[in-house]
Each structure stands twice: as C-alpha cells, then as structure tokens.
C-alpha cells in the first residue's frame, strides 16, 4: 500500500497584519510554513503507516524553497518526499496543479512496478488560496473516487470507510474501493511534532526527489499559466464600510444613545 499526501508551502497567514495607514499587508516576519491542514493529512497517513504496512510519500509543487516543508514531513516520519519544481509550473491554478500532481503520482506508481493499491490524503484546503479545489480535481484527473471533508477513516486492503462531515450536525458514512482520494478536516487529530531525531534523519539520511516538466513528460499546454483557465484580474484590500459613530458618555448614556440609533435605523 502506498499513501500519498499532497502538501503545500504557504505564508503563515495568522501572522499577517494590515498596516492601517497604508492599507497594505505587513509581510515582515511572516514565515513560509507547511499548510496547517496538511499536517492533519500527514498525521493520518503516519498513523495508518504504524497500524498497517504502508509507504507514505509526501508531494508538493513549488519553488526549490518548498523543500523545507518536505524536510519537515520527513522529520515527522514520512518515507519519501517529492518536489515538483520547474519554472514552467509557475502560475498554475487548481486545474494545472491537479494535472501536474497526477502526473507525479502516476510516475511514482509506474516506477514502483508492483500492483500496489494506493490512497491519497490531502488537507481540505490551503490557508492562502483557500479554494479546496485541488483534491477533487486530482481525483478526477486520476479517475478515482473522492471523498472530501473527512473526519474519520477506516482503511482495509481494498476499501475505505469514512465519515464525511457535510453539515455542522450531520455526518455521512461512505464506503468506497481503493484507489481513492480523501481530503481531511483540520480538527480531526493532533499532528505530531517532528522530534529532534526526526529532524536529524530528515537532513542527514534522506533525499528530496525532484521532478520537473521534462521527466514528468508534461503536456506544456496543461501546466503552469498555460494550463490555467482562471486568471487574477485584480487584487485589492477590503473596504472598511463602518459608519464609525463612537458613542460617548457614561455607560448608561451610551446605552441610551445606542438604543435611540437602533430604533431610528428600524433595527429594534
């Protein structure tokens, strides 16, 4: 059994602040990190690896700097890491990204030449783009079933049974055959920290495997910007639309004023 985990290097969004004067992003001190939700995917894969015999392979597409998150995945305990890096991949939207990831997975499966079954685990979405579109698109590209927003998984030799959360209060239990793809929710497990020994192993006894557009035999019209149907027309900052009436006076006075306003606005 092979378990693929798709990961992404993202900016640490929670550290991002807006400069109130210039209304621009303050990027200083914002680190590139492993997408937090992908940690849940890795944790799930590593638990499965411990319970059953499986090889865990983490993939990412990105610039060479993205090697860092793969080293982190190695430090957490994955067996193999693959970085899809090529200038020709840049500018990819989710269609081009899923095409490229699918090529890499097919290549790895072909080269391992055994008739192994496989499972792909993704985070539900990345904190920068927040689209959540790559997992279903990847499944479509590979022609395998997908189950998104998964919170629990049982894996057996040729099938999975998962709990999919499709509403705040409702969970559907779904069964499907392998190979399959799932995307997992953020609060389903507590991802492990890489230990010091893990870090040591990740940097000293392991290699990052590089794929580019050539050794993937990629159709150049389907990758990067060329393979992308969507394009960014404009990027701007949210308008602040508050009336910003600050009510002043004693607590009793401000409450009176507020009620007066709310009645005028026909809210009360």
């Amino acid at each position: 059994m092979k378990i693929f985990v798709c990961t992404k290097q993202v900016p640490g969004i929670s550290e991002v602040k807006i400069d109130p004067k210039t209304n621009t992003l303050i990027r200083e001190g914002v680190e590139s990190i492993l997408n937090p939700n992908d940690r849940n995917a890795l944790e799930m894969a590593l638990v499965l690896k411990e319970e059953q015999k499986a090889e865990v392979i983490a993939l990412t597409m990105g610039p060479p700097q993205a090697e860092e998150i793969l080293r982190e995945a190695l430090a957490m305990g994955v067996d193999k890491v693959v970085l899809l890096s090529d200038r020709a991949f840049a500018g990819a939207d989710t269609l081009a990204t899923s095409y490229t990831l699918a090529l890499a997975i097919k290549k790895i499966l072909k080269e391992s030449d055994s008739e192994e079954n496989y499972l792909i685990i993704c985070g539900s979405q990345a904190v920068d783009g927040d689209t959540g579109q790559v997992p279903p698109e990847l499944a479509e590209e590979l022609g395998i079933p997908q189950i998104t927003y998964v919170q629990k998984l049982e894996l057996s030799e040729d099938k999975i049974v998962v709990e999919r959360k499709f509403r705040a209060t409702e969970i559907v239990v779904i069964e499907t055959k392998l190979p399959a793809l799932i995307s997992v929710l953020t609060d389903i497990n507590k991802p492990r920290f890489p230990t010091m020994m893990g870090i040591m192993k990740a940097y000293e006894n392991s290699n990052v495997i590089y794929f580019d557009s050539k050794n993937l035999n990629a159709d150049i019209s389907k990758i990067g910007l060329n393979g992308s149907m969507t394009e960014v027309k404009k990027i701007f900052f949210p308008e602040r639309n508050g009336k910003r009436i600050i009510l002043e006076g004693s607590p009793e006075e401000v409450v009176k004023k507020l009620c007066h306003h709310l009645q005028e606005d026909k809210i009360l």
Partner: protein
Amino acid sequence: MSIKIDHELCTGCASCVESCMYGAIELNNNIAKVLPNCTLCGACIEACPEEAISLERGDIKTKKIDISQYKGVWVIAEHYKNKIHNVAFQLLRKGRELADLLQVNLTLVILGANFDDKLEEFSQYGMDEILYVRAPILKDYYSDLYVKVISELVVQNNPEIILIGATPTGRDFAPRIAKRLNAGLTADCTGLEINPETKNLLQTRPTYGGNILATIQTPSSRPQMATVRPGIFKIPEKVQKDVKIRTIEYQFKEKDSVTKIVKVISKTKNTVNLEDAKYIVAGGRGVGSKENFKLLKDLANVLGAELGGSRITIELNWLDPDRQIGQTGKTVNPKLYIACGISGAIQHIVGMQNSDIIVAINKDPNAPIFHWAHYGIIGDLNEIIPILIQEFKKLKSEE
C-alpha cells in the same frame, strides 16, 4: 513565462513590492526585480501605476474555444432530506441580475427524486427555466453521479455561467466537473459582476486568510464556474412568472456510483442557525472566560439572537465549533450584529461584514473592529452589557 519589468518605465515606487503576497519582488538599484519565488499571480501588474510590469506568456498554443456558443446562467441546487439548501435561492437573486445584464435565461438545476410537487413553488424565485433531473438514487448526494449528470447537461446545453453554493457538497462536486470540462472555477466567491466590455464574469473572493480580495476571471474558456458563499446574497422576493419546467428521467446503472452511503449520523443537539439569524451577539477574546459568556447569552436571550464567536473563543473551548463566525467559520448577514470584546481581525470581519448594523463593544479604542462598526462603544463589556440588557427589556415591555 515570466513577469517582465520594463526598466525604462519603472520609477522604483515600490507599489509592486507592497502588492506582492509572496515577497517575490524587491527593489534593486531603484528598479523592481522579480525573485525566483514568484508564482506569476499577476497582482503586481495591476498595482503598477506606470504599467511597467507585464506577464510574458510563451508562444504555447492552447486550444481556443468559441465562447459565443455558450449562453445562459445556471444555478445548481443541493438538497438534504428533500429540502433545497437556501443558498440556491440566494444565488437565483444574483443569477437573475447577471442573466438580465447578459440578456440570457436563468436556469435552476435540481438533481433529485421527490421534488415534483415543489417545482411550482420554486418557480416563484425568478428563474426562466427549471431543469429537474429525476431518479430515485438522487434522493441522496453522490459525488460521482452529480459530476456525471451535470457534466453531460453542460455539454448538451452550453451555459456560460454556473453558480453553485460553496457548501461542503458544492465544493465537492464543482471542482470535479470543472476538471472534466476543463473549465475555470473560482471558489468561495463573495462578489459577482459582469465586465461590461468583455462580458466576462468577474468573481471576487477573499483570499490570503481574508486579508485581501482577488477578482478572478476566466476569459478564454466556458462555462465560467463559481462556488459562492451562503449568506452573501438575500433570497429574492417571490414573483409570478412563466417558468419552463423540463423534467429529465435519468436511468442509472448500478456501477455509476463507486461510493456507497453506509449511514447518516445526525447530532440532534440543539442546532445553531447563525446563517439565518436576524440578530447575533458575538464574543471574542475580550469576553475573558467561558463563564463570562453567560452575560452574552443573557443579552442574546433578550433579543432573541443567536450566540456566536470569533475563532479564539472556539480554540479556548468557550463556545462550540458550530458557533464560529469568520473565514474558517460561518458567514452571517443579520440585521444586527453585536460584537463584544472582538478585536476585529480580518479573518473575523470577512464573516460578518455584510451585517446590516454592526455594534462593537471593546475596551481598546484602537481595536480594528471600530473601523467596521456602525456604532462603537469604548468600555468594559461587563459594565455595558447588563445595562444594555435592562434597556432592551424596557423597550420590549413598551412594545
């Protein structure tokens, strides 16, 4: 493909440096320089006041399609327990507007089993046509069946725009259809417009944790697909209108679905309905403790409001996760939103900025929430809220 900087035109103003979310441009000898970690997102092109930045595409020939062959706006409904999700009706309001601008038909697409007697009622929401695909198995949601049926319908009918609710279900099947049709799809939109010149759909969505908004378009392929957040648009008023109803019987073979629903587990625990709430009382870190939420609960009870919170209140276990409002929680649009002890991080704002009236109570006069609030009260919520409760009670009894 690369970002090109015209050295003649570049004035070294650094607008592009500020616009880049990935820190991939710097000034070198007062000229902008693109670094290897550039993702070609194009944000800098728009930001440059001198038009010195351009995106150079290679001479790759991509298959061009004739986009004029695609006509019509579709809204795809989802349902659970034979009830259509409200977001479909919300999308019909926006869909009507887009269809009128484009002078095309608006179609509601339903895949289901038992809607025959409800179509009449649905036809009052302003569409021109209902496309009802009927099959017993479509009583439930199957990812692959939705993808198969909708993809086939799209190929047969060539709509130019497809709108889908950005729910776990919509976000499950929409990407897969987009991939099958090689169509551009924009996730989780909060704004939709038509470019008056090109007639392209301009899809605006929060990105980068809600810190910025990006407008996305799909200029050279059709259909243009978007998933749209529930709660962004209001359900339209009912109108009497002639609506064409097309019912399609669909025959599935057993192997059409590779997944099997084993069972559905419902938590019957008191359900929270923030999306449809008229009044919301929400708390943030400033509430201070789980116990202090009692005060907010009292306020909510007086108003008949739902209780919500910012992300931190969920992380600290002060509130249940289904009460989270914001980028990673719910998007709400009540008549009145009272933010208590919420500082106003952008991740929270994106979830509540469509509220009609926002009231902020916060100790810190510099809290960003005051930029978004219609009425701000600078003070201790423990002092303010009890008085507020008294006053609301008084007003209520006067009615």
